[in-house]
Structures are given as C-alpha cells and as structure tokens.
C-alpha cells in the first residue's frame, strides 16, 4: 500500500463513525420529546376528543373536533396559496439562474424565511383583517401560506439545479418547448425532493400559533366558513396549555399528539405518492 493510505483510511473511519453518531445523537432528543408528547397525550385521546367541541373547564367530554377540521382547512388554504407560487418561483430561479430577477427572487426568499411568524401575522392582520374588520380563516391561510413559500421555492430551485443538464437538453433536442421540457422531464425527476420541500413547509407551519392569533383568531364552535374566525389545533393547544387546569392540560397534550400525527400522515402519503411518480420518470 502507498504511504499515507493508513492515515486516510483512519480519517475515513472516524468520519463514518461521526455520521452514524450524528444520527443517534439526533434521535435522542426526538425519543425524549416523542415519549413526552405521547405519554401525556394518549391518556386524553378518546372518541369524544374527535367529535366534540371544547367544553368549559370541569365539564367532561370536551374535544377538539372543530380544531382538527380547522387546522386541516387552514393548512390546505396555505398550501393552495404557497405551492404554486413556491414551485413556479423555484422553476424560474433554476431555469433562468443567471438573471438579475432570479438573484432577487432568491434573496427575497431567504429573507422571507427568516421573518418571524409573529411578524407575518401582524402583516396579514394589517392587510387582511383590519380593513375588513373581520378575523377570518382566509387571513389565517394567507399567513401560513406566506411562511411556506420560501421553503418550497428554495428547495425546488436547489433540486432542479441539480438535475443534470443532459436531461433538459435531451428533451429540447427531441423538440419539446421549454415549458414542456421542464414540466414533463426536469420537475418529475426532482419530484421526491420537491415533495420533501412541501412536506417540510407544512411541518413548519402546522405547528405555528403566532401567525394565527391575529388572523384566524380561534373559534369555540364548529365552523367551516372561510370568512369567519376558524379554530385551529395550535391556538387551542396554546390556549389550554396556558390555563391552570389539569384537565385542559391533558387535552392540550392530546391536541399536540393529534397535530404531530396529522403532519406525519401527510408526509407519509406524500412520499408514497411520489414514489410511484419517481418510478416512472427517467433517471
């Protein structure tokens, strides 16, 4: 063997050990937190939780049915707003990477990502609540959507940039328009990654309270009206966790558990869907 090989091999082994160690290290707090949430939340999960509205303290059988539905609606609204803008912006940034507009969009996306959720909430309050004198689910969805955009856009951009140029060129050589080449060849080959971006964005906003406090407010009653305040798991959990009552605390934990479950289920479904998509795309 050449001299120096032993040292290089040792460095490599240390590196591999470090990577494996990182995984274990990250799993430790995860296990702790999960154990905490599950052990506290599972006690209060019952059928009533999923079918009843919040009850005043001391009355048994309260639930968060309206909050569960509300969260799904708000996240859905956010997604409807954010996914098209995010993906299209990401496509522009990667396809026309050298232009001044692409650099500007990238810069704007990174800045938007650092804006704290409460600032987004205050901004949307100013443009969508105050002028109409109305708290609404639409305003809440807008606030959540705004927070999702940069994550989706940047992830889409970075992944599209990594698609080998040969794929794009191949499609163009076969006579496809630019749009066709991008949408039928480039994007599907990065689909798994783009979905990761969307899932991350949803995970990011599904647990947010601050942007909803001044936009969709919250609602003790069941409501699917988009122009009225809408209940959400995060605000309800926050409200209960801030109270002095053990019963409400237990329900707050149950709510947190349901929230985590919703986000995970969504991510699993998304992965499953794109696995089929990826098996069809050329790679």
């Amino acid at each position, binding site marked *: 063997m050449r001299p120096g090989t032993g040292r290089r091999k040792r460095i*490599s082994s240390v590196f591999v050990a470090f990577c494996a160690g990182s*995984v274990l290290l990250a799993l430790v707090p995860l296990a702790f937190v999960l154990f905490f949430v599950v052990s506290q939340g599972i006690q209060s999960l019952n059928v009533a939780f999923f079918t009843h509205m919040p009850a005043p303290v001391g009355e048994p059988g309260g639930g968060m049915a309206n909050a569960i539905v509300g969260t799904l609606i708000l996240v859905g609204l956010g997604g409807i707003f954010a996914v098209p803008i995010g993906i299209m912006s990401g496509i522009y940034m990667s396809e026309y990477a050298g232009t001044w507009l692409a650099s500007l969009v990238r810069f704007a996306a990174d800045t938007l990502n650092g804006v704290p959720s409460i600032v987004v909430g205050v901004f949307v309050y100013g443009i969508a609540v105050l002028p109409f004198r109305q708290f609404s689910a639409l305003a809440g969805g807008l606030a959540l959507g705004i927070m999702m955009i940069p994550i989706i856009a*940047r992830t889409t951009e970075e992944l599209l940039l990594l698609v080998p140029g040969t794929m794009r060129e191949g499609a163009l050589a076969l006579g496809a328009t630019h749009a066709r080449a991008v949408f039928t060849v480039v994007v599907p080959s990065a689909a798994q*990654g783009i979905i990761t971006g969307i899932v991350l964005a949803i995970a990011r906003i599904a647990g947010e309270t601050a942007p909803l406090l001044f936009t969709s407010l919250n609602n003790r009653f069941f409501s699917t009206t988009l122009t009225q305040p809408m209940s959400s798991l995060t605000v309800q959990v926050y409200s209960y966790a801030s109270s002095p009552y053990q019963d409400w605390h237990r329900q707050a934990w149950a709510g947190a558990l349901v929230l*985590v479950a919703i986000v995970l289920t969504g991510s699993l479904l998304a992965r499953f869907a794109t696995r089929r998509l990826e098996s069809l795309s050329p790679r």
Partner: protein
Amino acid sequence: MRAGRAAGDLAFRLGTGLFGLVLVLLVAAIGAELVRQSWLSIETFGLNFWRTSIWDPVAGEFGALPFIWGTLYSSMLALLLATPIALGIAVFISELCPNRLRPPLVFLTELLAAIPSIVYGLWGIFVLVPAVRAAETAFPQALKSLPFFSGPPFGLGMLSAALILAVMVIPFTSSIAREVLKSVPVAQREGAYALGATRFEAITAALYYARTGIVGAVLLGFGRALGETMAVTMVIGNSPKVTLSLFAPQHTMAAVLANEFSEAADDLYLNALIEIGLVLFVITLVVNSLSRLLIWSMARSERQAAATTVVPAAESAA
C-alpha cells in the same frame, strides 16, 4: 412553428417570472409595512435604537441591543451545534446506511420537524431546563470564572435556548442536504472511487459538487433559528441583557415581539415592538447578503479553476 415555439417559451419565462416577482413584492410589502407601523419609534429614537440597552415601557425608553445580541448569539450557537450533526445525518442517510434502514431514518428525521414549536417549548421547561440546571450546578468551579460560564445556575438561559434551537434546526438542514446529496450524479462518486478515494474523500467530493445546495440548506436552518419564537421564549429566561454567559437568561427579538405585542396598548410601545421586527428583518437581509457573497466567491473560484484546467465533462457517464 418556430414563432409559436418562441412565443411559448416567452410565455413560460414571463409566467414563472411573474410568480417570482410576487415573492419579491411580498417581501417588499412586509418591509414597507414594518417601516410604516414603526415610524413613530424610528422618529423618536433614530439610530440609537440599535445601540441602547434599555427596554422600559413605563418610561417610554426603548433600545433593541440586548435582543439583537440574544438572537444572533442563540442562532449562531444553534447553527454551530446543528450543522455538523445535520450534515452527518444527511451523509449517513444518503451515502452510508444500508438501503433497508433508509426509509425509517428519513421518517424519523422528518418526525423531528413535525413537532410543533410549542411542544418543544413545553418539553424544554419540564425536561431540558432542569437537566441543564443540574449540569450547570455540577459544572467544575474552576471553569466558572470564565465569562462563558458565569452566573447562577438558573437552567433557563442561552444554553437551553441554543440546544432547543439546534434540535429544531437539524431536521430542516438535514432533509434538504440529504435531497441535495441524493441528486449528485453517481458519476461523481464513482469517479472518485475509481481514483482510489476513501469513503471520506469521495463524500467530500460529492459535498463539494453540491456545495451551493448545502449552503442553501444551512441558510434555511439559520432562518428557522432566527425567527423561532415559542420554544425559545419558554426556555431563555426573557431577560434583556447583553452577556457572554451561556448560563445567563437573555432575550431575543422574536420572543419579545411575541410576548409583548398583544398587550402593548400605547402607540410608542407598539411602534417600538414593530421596529424590533424591522431590525430582525434587516439583520436577515444582511446575513443573506453575506452568504450570497460567500456562494458567489465559491462559484467564482470554480470558474477560475475550470478556465485553467482541461477536464472531461463531468456527466459523460450519462
């Protein structure tokens, strides 16, 4: 046919560009709104706002320095802790781990991201902070004289905040880094191995190839840390002070804004709070500019290297 194609391509460019423009306008609108709603405070305090350490709602004196300090300190620490681990995880999942282990590990990392920040905060108060307090109390006396470790062991403070932020940042950076690494063409790695590289060296080559994506992943994580509110405010002690000590309670911009916004009823107080939001906005802009410069210089050095060496096309093994 040609003209139709050109028109189609132009429409595509304009269409996607328009969406990008919406993003830019959104950010500009937020910035403008922040300025508008904090104008009274800007007029009253001017640049002193950035330099003063007093936060006195009763006397009407406001200064953002302790919050700027707390935000930057906690985010930097979090990044320092989280980035190596996140990259280690990304590398492990995409390069080193057996195929069967991959889906569950991906699932577990995303699980970390799915936990709402308020849950992290509550876990922080009941589990992390007491543990940190115990660690601080047991800390060797000799090291306690260092400015980093001075002060009584509250448990609540910069260390707890940095730890919690690191845990929250890890899944973001690692998920994106993982996707980025997955997209590095197989040819890159195979070429390295063919040349006799160790695993470390081959992976480093892949990381280098994907470096702008990796920096993007780190930036996204940093943005997450800068703006995180709920979890931080529950463990950092919420005490506006500028100090190096990891043990001392401190405060961040996002935390003070979230804490005091709903109760602030007089105009100057409200404006000062919004100005803190503006300061955070500006700082995010500055951090982004610096990292853009970093990426640009990285790309520049690659262009220079490419111009002076003769290298076969990287994707020849397509």
